[in-house]
């Protein structure tokens, strides 16, 4: 549906370098990356809103690289909803109709269905300023869907929403993607958002694509240290491999399968590392005594840093547990993690 070939864009401080991506029809594609990686620039390049320096963009087989946005058959949803503040909700939703040949009846039917599906029937006469974030995002979605675009581009559509609305909109997006033929192209800086939505995803870093693939692959098989830490594998260590064993510094860590090189990396998610005050015997092979050298507050969790010889492991602990175990900096503890929790690359 979308084919991006060797795209190069310079825009102020942002540049895209030789970006190539291919997205199949109906896919829910999520483009991730830290702030400033150039995700929005890529999205706006697809939309035709920034000048392209080199390369090509194909949408549905057509080369749209030099086409104005209105001819590309796309819809855009922004983080700030970008509803037209001077129009009522109904006029917002129907805004695009006059540019699409559509008989009145079909239009009215589609409108009715969207309003029902999105549950915004009670809002139609109101103006955007009186709506809540979740309602605004629903309307923005209805407006984009009203003209049945082939692609919907979403720029961090969930970031500005409260937790509750966020969940709501997430489910909605998923449902629409499944029940329609519309391709979704979403941009976010938050990997966890992608986890539940994406069928396919890519991770960007400094204007280039770092890795692309199914979300499950990215989550469990990051190919680089950058991607590993981006997908939340906070424990990334370079290692020497010897069969099923990896040597990190002076520690020997059991890994699920041998590596085909003698050197490489291992990565473990912090939530897979368990902390206990007592050493305990079990099937878990990777067990080390250590000392807490840092506790980082994360809402109702702590990220606890445990130094084992020269290696610092990061583990997640609920605050309740931390209080129960009297965890504090300097305390001696034991950590455990399964060999199957270790990712090797």
């Amino acid at each position: 549906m979308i084919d991006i070939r060797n795209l190069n864009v310079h825009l102020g401080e942002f540049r895209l370098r030789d970006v190539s991506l291919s997205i199949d029809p109906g896919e829910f594609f999520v483009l991730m990356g830290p702030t400033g990686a150039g995700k929005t620039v890529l999205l706006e390049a697809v939309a035709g809103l920034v000048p392209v320096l080199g390369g090509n963009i194909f949408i549905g087989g057509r080369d749209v690289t030099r086409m104005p946005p209105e001819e590309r058959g796309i819809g855009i949803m922004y983080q700030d909803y970008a509803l037209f503040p001077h129009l009522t909700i109904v006029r917002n939703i129907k805004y695009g109709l006059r540019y699409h040949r559509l008989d009145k009846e079909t239009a009215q039917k589609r409108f009715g269905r969207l309003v029902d599906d999105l549950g915004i029937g009670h809002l139609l006469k109101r103006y955007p300023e009186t709506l809540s974030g979740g309602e605004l995002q629903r309307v923005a979605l209805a407006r984009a869907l009203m003209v049945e675009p082939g692609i919907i581009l979403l720029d961090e559509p969930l970031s500005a929403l409260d937790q509750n609305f966020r969940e709501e909109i997430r489910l909605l997006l998923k449902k629409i993607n499944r029940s329609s033929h519309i391709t979704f192209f979403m941009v976010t800086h938050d990997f966890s958002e992608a986890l539940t939505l994406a069928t396919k995803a890519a991770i960007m870093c400094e204007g280039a694509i770092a890795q692309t693939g199914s979300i499950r692959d990215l989550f469990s098989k990051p190919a680089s240290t950058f991607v590993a830490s981006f997908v939340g594998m906070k424990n990334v260590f370079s290692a020497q491999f010897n069969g099923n064993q990896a040597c990190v510094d002076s520690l020997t860590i059991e890994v699920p399968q041998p590596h085909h090189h003698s050197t490489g990396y291992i990565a473990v998610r912090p939530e897979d590392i368990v902390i206990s005050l007592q050493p305990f015997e079990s099937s878990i092979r990777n067990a080390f005594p250590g000392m807490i050298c840092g506790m980082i507050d994360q809402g109702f969790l702590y990220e606890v840093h445990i130094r084992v010889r020269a290696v610092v492991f990061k583990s997640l602990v609920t605050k309740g547990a931390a209080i129960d175990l009297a965890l504090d900096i300097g305390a001696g503890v034991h950590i455990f993690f399964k060999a199957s929790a270790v990712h090797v690359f």
Partner: protein
Amino acid sequence: MGRKGSFFWVSFSCGIMVLTFILLPLVEMLTAPSGAMLRETLQDRNVIRSIWLSIYTAASAAGISFLVGTPLAYLLARSQFRGKHLIESVIDLPIVIPHPVVGIAILGVAGKNHWLGQYLQEFGIRIMGSTTGIITVLTFVGMPFYINALKAGFEAISPRLENVSRSLGASMWSTFVRVTFPLAWRSVLVGLIMCCARSISEFGAVVVVAYHPMIAPVLIYERYEGYGLQYSQPVAVWLVLVCLSLFLALRLLAL
């Protein structure tokens, strides 16, 4: 917060001073002519005609600024390019140029000795002593105020709204007409008011280009020179009252 300190009182006194400085002469002037005098002035056809001409020419200048200045203001608000500062400075130039010089400069290119003047004559357009000329002058002095006000207005509108509009199939033109302009109309109004205010008050540049037909400030000056303060004040009162009520009405529209 405790009692108001000395700082507050000094600022406050400055405020009173400024307001007095502005209001005292104006109020004195507005209240000086007797009611009879004011009524009599209102029966003078020349007065009515000049006030009407003032309003008409200032409105025309605002209209022209609107037509030509709006796209320019949009361009300046949306694009970044080298030399933008220079262009903005050029647009501000009419503010600095002494008023008679404005008139002289415009007459300079409108005469037969200049190719532009010759062109204009061929099309039967006369600048000197004509309503056209007055409008030209007023546009010259008023346009910067319109463009600056509107530029700020456009800058305040998120380009994302325009992006969304275009993604929905609207061309740049449709987008401007249906989204950008309706959102900016308050700035447009403020800009028009500023432009009108500046141009309706102009005298020096106009008197050089057109003594007749007489706009109100020229008539007021002429009365002042010819008949004295007493006869110029009532005209001034009417002009100021008419302008203020017009602007007030427009302002209320803009709220």
